[in-house]
């Protein structure tokens, strides 16, 4: 009889029940949509903030340590150390390989051009990094430094190069011009395909494919440094403690540090992978990204809490009034012999069914809503979040039960006689 009452209540009062399910569905869809957006927004913002440039810099270990004693440099003068270009594919084989969004090596030397010495910068352009058991990883300066603007084209072969905007103006050079670059070792002729504006030193340099500069510098297969754009998590107190004193972390905390993509832990992973290297977090970039992401996360959390409260209140309003309009039925059940627990069980089972139905629908539409917001704001597609498929029905159930218990509880504790008389 219990299930008959339950089923008939849904079948024969379906418009009321549909209204209640719709209240849960719509209210929770907003919450789930916001949560879906919140789960993706950090990642998307992080990618957007690659425009700040690289946040990790990889250098030869010896070059990174500037050891001076009594004013004397301990590295022998004239001795420069380099990294091997052949080791760079290891960056995409580390634990945090999926967080490595782009990287570009750099080798700098001086070349003579039109009778004067100009900086010559070598890097990758649209470089295919060959990986074992994976598709080639395409990366280069344009990916690491999204703020680089090339008027013309990017160099796609060893006979082409970019000229910095300031140098181009000074020497009256432009796309299509051929220039002769000469170093102590060699000389080569390259065609300028674009004028580069970086806002930095490159504006006064010739920027050419890495292989060109390696040949001219007589350093085949060598790079001076690697700029890396990595997806990282804003540093928190744990990361700050590690930065101050790694020994202060307990084994469990260290484990958590290692397993979280803090800039420091990603840098440490990179350093371990590339022999003779030292990975350094570019604090200015990492901290700016961290501060922005931290604020966005806080904003999303606050927004999520407000939407959750607003939705919960509106759902509770609908469900509570649905229960209150059945006070006469509650009194009747008690009049024919139902205990308070019997009445509570009936109404709570209804609430569970309504909450679950609304929650399941909200799990689907909420994710669609979140995906739509992500597409509108970031022009990017979202992945379904399994956790929301579980969270939404659970939230629906909790809210529906929380909304139903107080009015049913109050009703079963009121004078049934008064309720039957409609007082």
């Amino acid at each position, binding site marked *: 009889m219990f299930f008959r009452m339950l089923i008939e209540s849904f079948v024969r009062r379906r418009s009321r029940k549909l209204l209640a399910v719709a209240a849960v569905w719509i209210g929770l869809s907003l919450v789930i949509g916001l949560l879906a957006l919140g789960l993706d927004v950090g990642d998307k913002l992080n990618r957007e903030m690659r425009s700040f440039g690289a946040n990790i810099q990889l250098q030869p270990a010896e070059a990174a340590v500037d050891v001076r004693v009594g004013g004397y440099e301990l590295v022998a003068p004239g001795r420069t150390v380099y990294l091997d270009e052949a080791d760079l594919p290891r960056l995409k084989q580390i634990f945090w390989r999926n967080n490595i969004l782009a990287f570009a090596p750099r080798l700098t030397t001086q070349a003579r051009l039109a009778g004067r010495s100009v900086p010559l910068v070598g890097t990758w352009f649209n470089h295919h990094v060959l990986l074992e058991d994976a598709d080639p990883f395409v990366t280069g300066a344009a990916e690491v430094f999204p703020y680089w603007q090339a008027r013309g084209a990017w160099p796609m072969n060893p006979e082409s190069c970019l000229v910095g905007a300031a140098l181009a103006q000074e020497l009256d050079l432009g796309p299509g011009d051929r220039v002769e670059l000469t170093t102590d070792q060699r000389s080569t002729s390259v065609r300028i395909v674009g004028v580069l504006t970086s806002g930095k030193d490159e504006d006064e340099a010739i920027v050419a494919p890495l292989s060109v500069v390696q040949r001219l510098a007589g350093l085949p297969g060598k790079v001076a440094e690697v700029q890396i754009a990595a997806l990282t998590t804003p540093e928190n107190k744990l990361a700050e403690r590690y930065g101050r004193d790694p020994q202060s972390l307990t084994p469990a905390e260290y484990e958590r540090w290692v397993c979280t993509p803090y800039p420091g832990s990603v840098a440490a992973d990179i350093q371990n992978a590339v022999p003779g290297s030292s990975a350094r977090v570019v604090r200015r970039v990492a901290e700016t990204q961290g501060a922005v992401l931290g604020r966005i996360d806080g904003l999303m959390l606050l927004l999520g809490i407000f939407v959750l409260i607003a939705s919960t209140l509106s759902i509770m309003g609908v469900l509570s009034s649905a229960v209150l309009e059945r006070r006469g039925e509650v009194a*009747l059940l008690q009049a024919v012999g139902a205990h308070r627990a019997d009445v509570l069980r009936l109404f709570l089972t209804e609430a569970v069914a309504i909450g679950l139905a609304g929650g399941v629908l909200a799990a689907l539409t909420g994710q669609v809503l979140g995906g739509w917001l992500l597409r509108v704001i970031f022009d990017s597609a979202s992945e379904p979040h399994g956790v929301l498929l579980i969270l939404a029905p659970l939230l629906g159930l909790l809210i529906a039960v929380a909304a139903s218990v107080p009015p049913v509880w109050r009703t079963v504790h009121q004078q049934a006689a008064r309720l039957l008389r409609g007082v």
Partner: protein
Amino acid sequence: MNQSAVLLEYVTRAYPGGVRAVDGVNLKIALGEWVALMGPSGSGKTTLLNLLDGLDRPTDGCVHVMGQNLLQLDVDEAATFRRENVGLIFQQFHLVSYLTAVENVMLAQYYHSMVDKQEALLALERVQLADRAHHLPSQLSGGEQQRVCIARALINDPKIILADEPTGNLDEDNADRVVKIFQRLHREGRTLVIATHDPDLGRLAQRIVCLRHGQIVEECSPDGSDAAPRATGAGASHDRDVMHVTAS
């Protein structure tokens, strides 16, 4: 006391603000007796019925029904007492809107013991509603709904039937049908306490208890031959106020 179905002693039901819906009532009803509670609106008839079925509690006095002191029962114990002993008939019928006639009858079975659809159909047949068993309350006339309410009240074979204006919302034909059901129940030996405005229904009772301002102002037999008009009140002695008029 062993022979009484109802024993009220100095029963008062006062509401906040000082209104006394029932004021110092003493009343004894014998097993198998048919008593009509009559009086103007607001005289305390419905409140008195609610005190008898345990849906309401007196602010003073004692209520014994079928030998049970209802003041000793909490809300759930009172519900258990009701389903074991009392059949309730309401003026507004109070049927569950989304259950059919037979399901409404089965509802009382469910909370009493176990559901038996055949028995519920039989109960509807007894009130001449077998052909309307699978209709929703909204598809039934007032008289039919009242008969479903009666079938529900009778399904668990209650010892006492409390009816509040059972013919109040019915036309003459339907009222006659309901009256005949009550007569049959009385012949079967059930105790009936019926609050009514209907003098025709009141005349069928063995005893009429007249209420005014929450007090019993008169008790008499319907034919007037052994009428016992009397005033009762909170200040009257117990022996005088507890009055048992045997069936004529």
